């Protein structure tokens, strides 16, 4: 059933992702971005994708490289504009990509709602702003809230630090960011990790993503990037 499978290659790990899928892609800027899974997705050639991610790519690596293929129909994100997000910028200006802009906390909370079986929730963020347009407003104890709906993924592609063979995950520092919540919100969660450690070697008190949320694991050679470039 839901037990995690460990794969040897990213190409094998992402098998089955179909045209038209909604894919949650982890990372905040470059920290926690699943570069190797994205590269495999580019090689695979899947088209007409909706990508949910905090940013819309940097330079020409990771998500930016995927956008460059022209196979992404829509991006749902909080902060597409960055100093080196020129690939997204060009696609957006030329009308070749659709953007749904969501405040960062709503992006996270809407995915949490999807993973937690919450049908919708009233959120104070963005009340009275242009991003409130078309949303239901409700006053609760004198404060206004907007009704927000879950964001679900067909797949989540995330990057974690270590996995055990069951699929329990731990992360590193602020690279944790969207991985844990995306893992709960997708039908199939695929995690690239720096290391698969033996069963029992992760501290049960310190597991961040329990195995139930992880379907596929693939160990990769760690590549980490700063905004200044690859390290």
């Amino acid at each position, binding site marked *: *059933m839901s037990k995690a499978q460990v794969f040897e290659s990213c190409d094998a790990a992402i098998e089955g992702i179909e045209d038209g899928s909604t894919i949650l892609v982890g990372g905040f800027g470059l920290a926690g971005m699943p570069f190797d899974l994205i590269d495999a997705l580019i090689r695979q050639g899947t088209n007409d994708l909706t990508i949910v991610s905090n940013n819309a790519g940097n330079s020409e690596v990771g998500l930016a490289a995927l956008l460059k293929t022209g196979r992404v129909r829509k991006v749902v994100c909080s902060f597409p504009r960055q100093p080196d997000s020129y690939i997204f910028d060009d696609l957006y200006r030329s009308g070749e990509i659709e953007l749904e802009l969501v405040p960062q906390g709503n992006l996270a909370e809407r995915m949490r709602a999807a993973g937690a*079986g919450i049908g919708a929730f009233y959120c104070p963020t963005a009340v009275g702003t242009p991003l409130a347009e078309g949303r239901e407003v409700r006053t609760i104890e004198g404060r206004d809230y907007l009704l927000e709906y879950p964001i679900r993924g067909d797949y989540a592609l995330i990057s974690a630090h270590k996995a*055990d063979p069951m699929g329990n995950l731990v992360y590193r520092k602020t690279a944790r960011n969207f991985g844990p919540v995306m893992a*709960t919100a997708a039908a199939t969660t695929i995690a690239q990790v720096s290391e698969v450690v033996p069963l029992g070697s992760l501290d049960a008190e310190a597991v961040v993503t329990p195995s*139930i949320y992880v379907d596929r694991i693939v160990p990769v050679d760690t590549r980490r990037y700063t905004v200044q470039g690859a390290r």
Partner: protein
Amino acid sequence: MTIRSIDEASIGTATVEHLDRGALSTSELAAVIARDIPDGSFVNLGIGQPTRVADYLSSEAGVVLHTENGMLNMGPAAQGLDVDPDLTNAGKVPVTELPGAAYFDQADSFAMMRGGHLDVCVLGAFQVSFSGDLANWHTGQLEAIPAVGGAMDLAMGSKVVFVMMSLFTKTGASKLVPTVTYPLTGVSCVSRVYSDYATFDLTADDVVIRETWGISVSALRKRIGP
């Protein structure tokens, strides 16, 4: 809504009638349920009889047990010096942890349940309706002190809900009923009923008898009605 045997549905298999023996004991029933839980499933076993299903899950099957008080990959009940008051199951019985366990708080544990991540949960019941309504938290008696715990969350959250119960009350009335008369735990949430006399699939249109013990399909139909 009708009660029928598998053969009447013409799906290639027939209802198995075990007429050479009596009804299942609780242990035997637990073993039957364990046999039907797919390998590698994430499973929650309710307080009471359902916890006995764990005794019949082989370690090779790799079934991962969830306990709603905040743990995945729970191990067997703790004995002697292994008893740790900080490590219990949902019935507050001291248990153990297996390699690959993870702890989490109540908000995360119930998010996991409500979000549909558990493959199977096995719950006890006072009554189940033909359409899968479940009553297992309150007898409806005025003097009873109500207590619901995680029953309603489990009933609504799990991908599949199995009920484990004796089929008849002490006075011989069927607990699988056209309409539940006890206060409800959840609506249309039970997929399958495992009882001492028979197992039933509850589908949108029918109650399908899968297997019987110590009673024939026709006799069973008469006792259940309608």
